[in-house]
């Protein structure tokens, strides 16, 4: 099987179809006896840039395989409404989501029914009740187009009307469904009737589409993510992106060869909404961040920096990685090297873009990389499946793929000038929004590293916690913090008592409902600002406060935040006339960390079920404040 996989991956031209045929034969045989293993092999094949015939064949195989796999826990329901034929796109999106670890159930309406499906409360869309709604118009379904004779004011109105029409659909769907929405922007046509002046003339179509695209981004509320089809089309090249023959025949939105990239792009956003995005980039060093082997070639011998073309490629790669870090991706190093020699390159090489302080976890030793990757995940307190491992060495990649299939391992070309795109096109670190928290996360992890140092130098844990001088701000969920709240809800796995992935829309409704109590905690200390790190959603029922969701970012574990939060919660519960607080724990593969959370806080067990789910109660009559070292500071307003 492994031979067939590598034969297929390396095959080109006509050989590729032959290799695919042989691979599919083997896969079908394997699926009959061991569908789970076949699923693992299939996942490994699903890279973003597959050609149409291949992804079509794999998608067909997936359909038969998923029957053998039996009913998978469909974690999300995805509805797709398009102004073109979405059939192939939908099956490819489903296939990529399977590869990303988020099997979905898909609903499709016939093409051209976006408005009808949303406006008619008895449509199939509302019977299906999706978690995520993908609205897929293309430029042909723009409701408005400027005429050259339109005045500038009229064109302004058309832009506003177009955006208002979409915005109204978003709000209607969201009011009725509470779902996250993914909305296509528009791809301008390759033909330009105003030639060079398409962008200059106030009524140019290219200008109109560009303005609509920007206005859509600005109008999108937190529950809407704009999917950048315009970028897909530009990246493919506008002249080749659309193949009108297939639009006229089959209403395909782009040339068939780009459907896989299109589907992958949508799938990456759905996966991010489902909490499956990656968090940490783990980097090899030799021939990944610089050319040559530091242990052999020395600081003067490695290729890095101006004056050498390959050296410039490695600098570019480091700049790209640094940009990822600046937007919140955690960086780690996993290198077979002597630790001091590896670090010396960071400290002393003048052309290094990445610095030691950019690396949240630095592992250079001679252990195998699978062991080291487990170590990195443990130290950063994130799941192994949150890691992306980048290594130029195909043997190391193969080893990690085999021993740790949960880790994403992109293929790298031999030429370092191709590293950036090879990594970037996977969109591993996709998010449904980018907030200020993301931009600060790097600094937060660095502060954490300094905190760990301080902890080592403090003998007594209480002394250490006191020395942190922690200050917390307690606020309800608001329009200002909803994006960060939704992000924590979709991403927190470990300190998460119920792992309920509520959408931003649902949480906003709770915040506005007087029966609900929503609470967020932002924590700062002497080492830096941790930002918003904990979310609590609870409902008052019959004089009891029922906790629906309690989660916390793992970077503030063991700091007494739970005790502080409970004190705040008790105070709010009493103010609302409650006599008790109830909590529940729903076990998952990842939240064993909090299985003793409620008893540790003094709750009494009410009941449990054989699946491990437990229910807890705290009577407010006897509950005294729990000690902690966190000082509450007034909220913003």
């Amino acid at each position, binding site marked *: 099987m492994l031979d067939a996989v590598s034969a297929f991956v390396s095959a080109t031209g006509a050989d590729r179809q032959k290799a695919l045929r042989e691979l599919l034969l083997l896969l079908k045989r394997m699926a009959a006896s061991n569908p789970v293993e076949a699923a693992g092999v299939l996942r490994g094949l699903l890279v973003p840039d597959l050609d149409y*015939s291949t992804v079509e*064949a794999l998608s067909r195989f997936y359909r038969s395989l998923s029957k053998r796999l039996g009913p998978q826990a469909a974690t999300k329901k995805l509805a797709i409404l398009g102004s073109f034929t979405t059939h192939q796109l939908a099956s490819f999106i489903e296939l990529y989501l399977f590869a990303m670890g988020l099997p979905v159930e898909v609903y499709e309406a016939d093409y051209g029914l976006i408005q009808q499906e949303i406006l008619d409360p008895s449509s199939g869309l509302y019977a299906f009740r999706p978690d995520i709604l993908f609205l897929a118009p293309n430029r042909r379904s723009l409701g408005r187009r400027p005429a050259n004779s339109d005045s500038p004011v009229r064109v302004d109105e058309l832009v506003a009307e177009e955006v208002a029409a979409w915005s109204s659909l978003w709000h209607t769907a969201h009011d009725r469904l509470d779902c996250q929405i993914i909305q296509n922007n528009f791809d301008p046509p390759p033909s330009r009737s105003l030639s060079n002046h398409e962008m200059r003339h106030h009524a140019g179509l290219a200008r109109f589409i560009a303005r609509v695209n920007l206005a859509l981004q600005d109008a999108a509320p937190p529950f809407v993510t704009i999917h950048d089809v315009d970028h897909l089309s530009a990246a493919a090249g506008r002249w080749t992106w659309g193949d009108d*023959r*297939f639009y006229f*025949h089959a209403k395909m939105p782009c040339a*068939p060869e780009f459907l896989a990239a299109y589907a992958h792009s949508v799938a990456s956003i759905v996966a991010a909404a489902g909490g499956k995005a990656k968090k940490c980039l783990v980097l090899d060093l030799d021939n990944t961040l610089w050319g040559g082997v530091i242990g052999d070639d020395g600081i003067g011998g490695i290729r890095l920096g101006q004056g050498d073309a390959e050296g410039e490629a490695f600098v570019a790669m480091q700049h790209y990685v640094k940009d990822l870090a600046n937007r919140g991706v955690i960086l780690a190093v996993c290198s077979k090297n002597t630790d001091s020699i590896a670090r010396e390159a960071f400290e002393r090489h003048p052309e290094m873009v990445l610095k030691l302080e950019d690396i949240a976890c630095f592992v250079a030793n001679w252990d195998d990389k699978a062991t080291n990757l487990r170590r990195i995940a443990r130290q950063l307190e994130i799941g192994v499946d949150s890691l992306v491992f980048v290594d130029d060495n195909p043997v190391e990649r193969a080893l990690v793929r085999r021993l740790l299939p949960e880790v994403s391992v992109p293929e790298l070309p031999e030429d370092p000038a191709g590293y950036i795109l090879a990594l970037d096109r996977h969109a591993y670190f996709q998010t449904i929004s980018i907030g200020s928290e993301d931009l600060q996360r790097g600094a937060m992890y660095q502060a954490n590293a300094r905190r760990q140092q301080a902890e080592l130098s403090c003998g007594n844990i209480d002394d250490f916690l006191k020395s942190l001088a922690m200050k917390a701000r307690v606020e309800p969920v608001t329009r200002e913090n909803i994006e960060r709240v939704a992000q924590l809800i979709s991403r927190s796995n470990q300190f998460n008592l119920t792992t309920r992935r509520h959408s931003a829309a649902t949480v906003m409704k709770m915040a506005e409902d007087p029966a609900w109590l929503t609470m967020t905690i932002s924590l700062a200390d002497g080492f830096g600002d941790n930002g918003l790190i904990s979310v609590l959603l609870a409902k008052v029922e019959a004089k009891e406060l029922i906790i629906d969701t309690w989660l916390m970012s793992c970077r503030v574990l063991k700091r007494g935040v739970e005790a502080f939060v409970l004190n705040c919660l008790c105070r709010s519960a009493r103010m609302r006339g409650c006599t008790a607080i109830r909590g529940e724990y729903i076990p998952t593969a990842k939240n064993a960390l909090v299985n003793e959370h409620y008893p540790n806080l003094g709750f009494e067990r009410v009941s449990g079920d054989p699946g491990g789910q437990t229910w807890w109660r705290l009577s407010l009559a006897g509950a005294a404040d729990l000690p902690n070292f966190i000082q509450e500071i007034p909220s913003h307003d």
Partner: protein
Amino acid sequence: MTNPTGDIRDQMQTLFRNVFVDDEIVLRDEMTAADVDGWDSLAHINLIIAVEKHFQIKFATAEISGLKSEGQNIGTFLALVQKKVSARK
């Protein structure tokens, strides 16, 4: 890329077998779309894409629809592919 070697009929037969996932398919000139299991509009598009890519040729819009219309069969399809491959140089 050099011209594909081997008989066009054989290569087309392999493409048909891939697209329709049926290793028993044997192409005969008089066959029409109705004789091949699963030759619906989606499979038709898949076939066109596979043939275009394999032979590095391009069908015109009318030719794509023409292949399934009255009077057309595998024989005329093969002849069209042959013509396009020869013209390709």
